[in-house]
């Protein structure tokens, strides 16, 4: 079982809810993914259209936990204020904390992230920090009170997979007891399987599912990949070698030259 803060989850796939072709496809994709946690956001609501009310009703109907994000926040103050607003609307202490430092890569501003995490943890939030694979930033986030980390695979929406494999492996090795969820950049199920094979506890995926030609089919494919990756990690993958090693026994080979 995956444990994030005090919640036990059987699914190791967390799913974003943005950019689906329709609400019904979103609903079906969540079901096909088996995800028990979905990310949500807050945006301006028009008193006339009240579009957010319908979306919230749809999400509540799914019976999953919600993880409100602070997407689009570029400063500590914006992120902290958005977290407060999300806690009230979604009635959860969970927050996916994003403090964006740069618009082209959506790279986290790790300095602002640590500062915001410290404030929010003190206020009783259970912070899911969207961070890089940097070990010292990870230490600071844990010192600030985070009890899990969400390192990026590669930039949000890029679909590039695990961009810095060595860095991610170092992070896993350095913090063996901390739940680590690879968030962002996963493009295809093999990327997700790879993350789980390396011992990451879960993955958070959005664009790779919502922008697939068939999001529901892709959600199912990711569910299988995550399960396979976890099973492989538990089974203990072989060590890679530089040269070939015959798999068929050499002893007893016939002399036929």
């Amino acid at each position, binding site marked *: 079982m995956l444990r994030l803060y005090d919640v036990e989850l059987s699914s190791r796939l967390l799913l974003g809810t943005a*950019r689906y072709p329709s609400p019904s496809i979103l609903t079906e994709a969540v079901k096909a993914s088996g995800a028990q946690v979905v990310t949500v956001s807050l945006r301006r*609501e028009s008193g006339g259209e009240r579009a957010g009310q319908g979306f919230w009703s749809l999400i509540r109907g799914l019976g999953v936990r919600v993880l409100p994000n602070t*997407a689009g926040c570029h400063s500590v103050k914006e992120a902290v204020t958005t977290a407060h607003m999300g806690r009230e609307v979604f009635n959860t202490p969970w927050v996916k904390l994003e403090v964006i430092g740069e618009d082209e890569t959506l790279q986290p501003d790790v300095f602002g992230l640590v500062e915001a995490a410290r404030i929010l943890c003190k206020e009783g939030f259970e912070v899911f920090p969207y961070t890089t694979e940097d070990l010292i930033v990870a230490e600071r986030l844990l010192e600030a009170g985070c009890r899990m980390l969400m390192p990026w695979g590669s930039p949000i929406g890029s679909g590039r997979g695990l961009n810095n494999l060595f860095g991610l492996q170092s992070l896993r090795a350095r913090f063996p007891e901390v739940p680590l969820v690879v968030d962002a950049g996963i493009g295809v199920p093999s990327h997700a399987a790879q993350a789980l094979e390396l011992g990451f506890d879960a993955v958070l995926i959005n664009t790779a599912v919502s922008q697939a030609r068939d999001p529901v089919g892709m959600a199912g494919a990711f569910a299988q990949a995550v399960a396979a990756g976890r099973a492989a990690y538990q089974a203990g993958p072989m060590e890679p070698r530089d040269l070939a090693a015959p798999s068929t026994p050499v002893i007893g080979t016939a002399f036929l030259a």
Partner: protein
Amino acid sequence: MRILVNGASREIRAADLSGALDELGYGGAVVATAVNGEFVPATDRPAARLTEGDRLEVLAPMQGG
């Protein structure tokens, strides 16, 4: 008075945040509010006085990654 509601100028009669939300069509909606960049919890809305030129943000659940 005129205030900015989600970036658009609006004329309202109510003097408090709770009344303004009703007047602007948010009655009963699940929303979070901020005035001039500061979060105003739902329980504080009836006592939150609005003044000319205030910036009101009204946010609701939306899709997110």
